[in-house]
């Protein structure tokens, strides 16, 4: 574990505060790839991550705080979708030149942890269609294997928000993206939303799919010998659904 370089610590807070007024905390490792978008490391985001990383956080709180981060991820993800100009008349008779959403979207969750992100997606996109992909590690080959998928029929015409909270080696995410591409979804229409990623996993993923966009809340220190993200938050699915 000592081989993994330390994560950076930084004073965190708004610009109008003096440096010494800002509390210090560990922030996300930077990633240079232009298709990786890390949420701004604001005090509020760090506090939310602190809550869900803490092993003594009870399940109700874990669900609530992870949901808040997921909503922020979805909001950031949606910003990467195209819009077109649209002019409207306001209730008090003014003209407002705005924009409107263009194109249809759908969510695709990688079971089971990814399903935990569906509520956050629905909070922002009310009646969004959601597909599912079940990928599990094959006991014999110890490689990920596709067990099940159910996706909207017109998925090739949609922008896909791929949901998986923890990105360690990226084995299942890579397989999920390949499934989507095989159904005709162009790579540039896939957005991968994720809470905590490992630096090595996300770099190789970003290089493998250069047109796909990744939105994450935090790039952690690294992986341990069992390929768990460290310091991480444990098994997201277990903490969300069971423990």
């Amino acid at each position: 574990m000592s081989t993994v370089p330390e994560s950076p610590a930084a004073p965190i807070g708004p610009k109008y505060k003096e440096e010494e007024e800002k509390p210090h905390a560990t922030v996300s490792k930077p990633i240079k790839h232009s298709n990786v978008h890390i949420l701004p490391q604001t005090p509020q985001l760090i506090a939310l991550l602190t809550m869900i990383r803490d092993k003594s956080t009870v399940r109700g709180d874990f669900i609530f705080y992870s949901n808040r981060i997921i909503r922020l991820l979805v909001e950031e993800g949606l910003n990467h979708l195209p819009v077109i100009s649209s002019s409207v008349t306001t209730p008090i008779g003014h003209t407002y030149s705005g924009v409107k959403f263009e194109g249809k979207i759908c969510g695709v969750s990688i079971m089971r942890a990814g399903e935990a992100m569906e509520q956050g997606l629905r909070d922002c996109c009310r009646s969004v269609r959601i597909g599912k992909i079940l990928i599990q590690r094959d006991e014999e080959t110890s490689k990920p294997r596709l067990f099940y998928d159910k996706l909207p029929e017109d998925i090739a015409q949609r922008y896909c928000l791929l949901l998986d909270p923890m990105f360690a080696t990226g084995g299942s995410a890579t397989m999920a993206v390949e499934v989507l591409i095989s159904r005709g979804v162009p790579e540039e229409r896939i957005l991968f939303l994720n809470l905590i990623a490992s630096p090595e996993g996300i770099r190789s993923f970003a290089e493998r799919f250069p047109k796909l966009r990744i939105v994450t809340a935090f790039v952690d220190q690294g992986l341990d010998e069992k390929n768990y993200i460290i310091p991480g938050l444990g098994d997201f699915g277990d903490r969300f659904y069971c423990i």
Partner: protein
Amino acid sequence: MVVHYSPPWANTHIIGIAGSSGSGKTSLAVRIVSALNLPWVVILSMDSFYKSLKPEESARAFKNEYDFDAPSSIDFDVLVERLRDLKQGRKAEIPVYSFEKHQRVEHTTTIYSCHVLILEGIFALYDPRVLELLDMKIFVDTDADVCLARRLARDIKYRGRDIHGAIKQWTAFVKPNFELYVEPQKKNADIMVPRGIENSIAIDMIVKHIQRALLSKSDEHIKTLRALGQGYDADEPLPANVKVLKDTPQLRAMHTILHDEETTREDFVFYFDRLATLLVERGSDHLAFKPKEVQTPQGLTYAGLELSKDVSAVVILRSGGTLEVGLRRVVPDARIGRLLIQSNARTGEPELHYQNLPSSLAKDSVLVLDPQVATGAGALMAVTVLKDHGVDEERIVFVTYLAGLGGLRRLTKVFPKLKIIVGKIQEGFERRWIDERYFGS
């Protein structure tokens, strides 16, 4: 440069009404208040300032042998202090006196934000320090036999005394004290009202006088507000503590839906709630945090942050109610205070009609919610109220959706440490419409 804003209740107009016991001071005060029919006219009875009695005095009081009608029974020091607070527009805690126990009770009542205060009591025009604070001095001059008759009726009916006790009080204390202390106050009075509340001409005159005072206060307030908005360079950048949400395609699409008059109410509420959640999330970044180390399930340490204070919210009604869903999605257990501030339909002057604030406010971080800031007048008033309730300016985060530059400049000039989160900058003045759309009324 910090600019001072003084709310319309600073320099409270204080009216003193004195007169003999049973002369009808209270009735006169009540008649004046009901004739004015405004929420910011308040009666303060000097009975609240009776000194707590020592056991020996209390025993005499129960035997009707204690002199309640001498100036020495009134705690003028506390009264003067409270009146000075109110005159300055500050909050005043008024003691509550129990006639059953002859003691001040634990709790107090609060007077805040009244524009006119009517102080009534037999010694309202007695202490020179009080006289100095009064804007109008009234003496109710009722015949002694009428006073006695009223006093007897009241003592027996409401104060549990018997007829002998009541007469004993009158002859031993009330009458001699009247001659000694009460009557001489006449020379301090501006107006003598013979016959008390039967004197409708006098009451009418007093009411008209107060109305004029209120009107000039309101004019002054409007002038202050106008002056605060002048003399700023239109190109002057907003200070760093005003945060406008990043102009992203998604946000602009939401603005478009919310601004479109053809959007259904169902959609409006959905997108407004979504945007409100974002605003409150952004606002939360400006609360106070401190470092916190936690252990992850893998047994490793993460150096993170946690909120260093509880979060309270203050909703400026009615519009502020539109941001409450967003608030609950982010801080479901926030303690919520409410202020009803309405603009006067005729003058546009903001008026504080109602307030109910959690007592914890003074030690919490506070989010103030109001979806629209146009002139900033209502917001100025709200922040003033919070500061008067002990909330530090730097602990207040004002969350709004649409804000005009003029309003933002006013707010930041008066409160340079206030943080303001804005969804979108509004060009020019717009009347409030978000609440109409959101609530459908």
